[in-house]
């Protein structure tokens, strides 16, 4: 018989042995010790049971406390969000859904509180254009690890952006899926309208450019024949009457005007279609201005207007396409001459200013009313003259000039006072060594 080591010790302490009957004194001492041991065991058990019970209760309280806190944080976050949100756990219980969700899908608070996913889901799916198979699809996605983005197009016309992601513990365990819905009906409709309008405008613009380019080309060929033949008749050997000469000169003038118009339209169409290729090189502003002034001197004489130039000797060359620069200057100077009365002045100047050359064409002409300024550079629009007459020209010159200047990376700017004069200032980039032409 193997005795418990504690009983062996108790026997020894009581002066008794396992293999002999004890004395009465030893027997009583043993009983007292055994009784004490039992009492200790009772107390130990009491303490252990009680501490398990109380610490269990404390742990439960702690858990409730943490849960209450995290629930409160979750609710406040959901309600503050700018989206409809629903959280569904792996057992397909609705953990939370915010007010925005209930309103978007017309779900009652009671249905959310009941916590069953299926009836809530049915309300959502009811808005599908084609609800067949939707429930099964959502069911499959639910406890997958997939993050999903989708644009929903509902039967009631609403457009909803959906974002859905699994909620995972740090160890990867799936605990819930959270889904966000954002109503973007307004935004998506507006974007669609803008896109449609843009496409229509682009198509119209392309058609117009095509039409203009084709027409201009088709017009130029017969027009050249008309002008050439009229010129031949005028300078030829065949006798013509004074009246016939008058008519021929009129045909020639009208024909040339029409050709200018066609040429301007062609140039503008080319620039607008992005087909105008510039050959950029250093061009001395002074040379270009002197050349343009010389070419227009006859017109100035004819109109009785003093045309002068004042170009700083140290003005650096500009980076420009020689032909385009000539066109820009020609347009601005001839315009100035056109709107300046007899005995007026037109002055062309050029100064260098921080990396640019500013070329100014200033006249003492009729000026432009402030309310007319916004229409200045529009193609096919001519400003009204104070006299009520229609001005000469095609109405394309300034539009073309502005586009050419901008094509060079320059700017055009106008200041004007009605009845006192107008100054156009063109800022062209100066040519600098090392800067690619």
């Amino acid at each position: 018989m193997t005795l418990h080591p504690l009983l062996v010790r108790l026997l020894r302490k009581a002066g008794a042995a396992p293999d002999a009957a004890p004395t009465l004194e030893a027997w009583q001492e043993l009983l007292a010790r055994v009784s004490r041991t039992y009492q200790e065991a009772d107390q130990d058990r009491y303490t252990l049971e009680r501490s398990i019970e109380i610490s269990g209760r404390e742990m439960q309280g702690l858990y409730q406390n943490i849960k209450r806190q995290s629930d409160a944080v979750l609710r406040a976050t959901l309600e503050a969000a700018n989206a409809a949100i629903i959280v569904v756990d792996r057992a397909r219980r609705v953990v939370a859904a915010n007010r925005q969700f209930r309103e978007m899908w017309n779900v009652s608070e009671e249905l959310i509180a009941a916590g069953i996913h299926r009836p809530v889901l049915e309300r959502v799916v009811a808005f599908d254009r084609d609800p067949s198979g939707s429930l099964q699809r959502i069911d499959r996605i639910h406890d997958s690890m997939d993050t999903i983005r989708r644009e929903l197009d509902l039967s009631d016309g609403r457009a909803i952006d959906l974002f859905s992601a699994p909620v995972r513990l740090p160890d990867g365990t799936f605990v819930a899926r959270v889904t966000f819905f954002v109503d973007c009906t307004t935004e998506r409709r507006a974007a669609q309208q803008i896109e449609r309008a843009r496409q229509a405008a682009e198509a119209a613009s392309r058609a117009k450019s095509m039409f203009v380019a084709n027409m201009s080309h088709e017009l130029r060929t017969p027009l050249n024949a008309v002008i050439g033949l009229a010129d031949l008749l005028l300078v030829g050997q065949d006798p013509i009457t004074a009246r016939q000469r008058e008519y021929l000169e009129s045909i020639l003038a009208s024909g040339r005007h029409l050709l200018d118009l066609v040429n301007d339209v062609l140039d503008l169409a080319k620039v607008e279609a992005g087909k105008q290729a510039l050959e950029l090189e250093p061009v001395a502003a002074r040379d270009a201005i002197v050349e343009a002034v010389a070419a227009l001197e006859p017109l100035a004489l004819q109109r009785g207007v003093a045309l002068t130039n004042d170009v700083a000797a140290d003005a650096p060359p500009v980076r420009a396409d020689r032909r385009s620069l000539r066109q820009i200057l020609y347009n601005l100077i001839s315009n100035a001459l056109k709107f300046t009365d007899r005995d007026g002045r037109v002055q062309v100047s050029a100064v260098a200013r921080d990396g640019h050359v500013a070329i100014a064409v200033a006249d003492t002409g009729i000026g432009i009313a402030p309310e007319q300024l916004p229409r200045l550079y529009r193609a096919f629009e001519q400003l009204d003259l104070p006299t009520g007459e229609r001005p000469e020209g095609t109405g394309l010159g300034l539009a073309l000039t502005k586009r050419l200047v901008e094509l060079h990376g320059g700017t055009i700017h106008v200041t004007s006072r009605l009845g006192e004069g107008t100054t156009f200032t063109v800022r062209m980039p100066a040519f600098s060594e090392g800067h690619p032409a």
Partner: protein
Amino acid sequence: MELATFAYTDNAWSCPVFPALDSPATLVIAFAAPAYEDRPGVLGELAAAYPRSVVIGCSTAGEIDQTRIRDDSIAVAVVQFAATRLRQAHVRLASATESRAAGGALAAALAGDDLRAVLVLSEGLHVNGSELARGINGGLPEHVVVTGGLAGDGARFGRTWVLAGGAPQRDAVVAVGLYGERLRVGHGSQGGWDTFGPERVITRSTGNVLYELDGRPALALYKEYLGERAAELPSSALLFPLALREHAGAEERVVRTVLAVDESAQSMTFAGDVPKGWYAKLMRANFDRLILGAQAAGAAAMSRHEQPALSIAISCVGRRLVLGERTEEETEAVLETLPAGTAQVGFYSYGELSPHLSGPCDLHNQTMTLTLLSEAL
């Protein structure tokens, strides 16, 4: 080194004559039931038998004589060293706030070139053991091994005393310094308690006095856990020591044992600091691990020892309260791990002083702390 152990039980010394080992290099250690303060004659006889020796000791919550544990005895060890010198010092300690200064004063009195070890016995009711240890550590080089304990008073927490200058003295700390190259000192300290329940924050405390955990009176919490055993306070609070750590991520924990409760202030006084803002968890005994812990302490203390060797076992009163009739299993477990022939005296204390493995001395609670002394040949 010459070694003798004996005891005073049933109004008689267990040896017919006191071993003739009196010399200036003789250390007499006596652990006595608190009531011997009222019978100064008995301790007087011992002091008179060893007039040239260093005699130290203290009151206990149980005297350890080899493996036996008694509650009304005096357990004595007499060690005559061959090549080790001794010096005794003692200081008064009337309140917890004096603890660090008391430690500093003892260190100053004992510091010396070849000081190897210090054995410290303190009054056990109002000392702040952590501060006492800090005071001693602050005044001594790191290699000096400091061990010891806080005097006890059974499970009564009424009066404790230390033996200094041959007579019991309350409100005092006594220490003996051991000097010399040939002294061998081993030490080990092990617990055996598990933490349980929620971790709580110490929201109100001053030094070693605890008022509130998580904003609730700490005393109320203990009473709730103790149930009908709350009637046995403060001793029953020993069933649930506190494990403290500085912050929630800290690995190292210190253990604190209750010394007293104050119903009017709803406070509890512990044997060491209970700093505000630290985290506290209740602990409970794991019976088998208490015994294994004692064994482990013995294993840690045993290295490079000659015979004869003396084991000074200082174990926490809380362990005794839990182990009850089975307490001797731990004193047996310790002695079994030590070399055959090792003599053992010791006591159940209100706190143990020992280095963690090696390192500065600190206050431990609820441990079995061993100091093993021998001399190289």
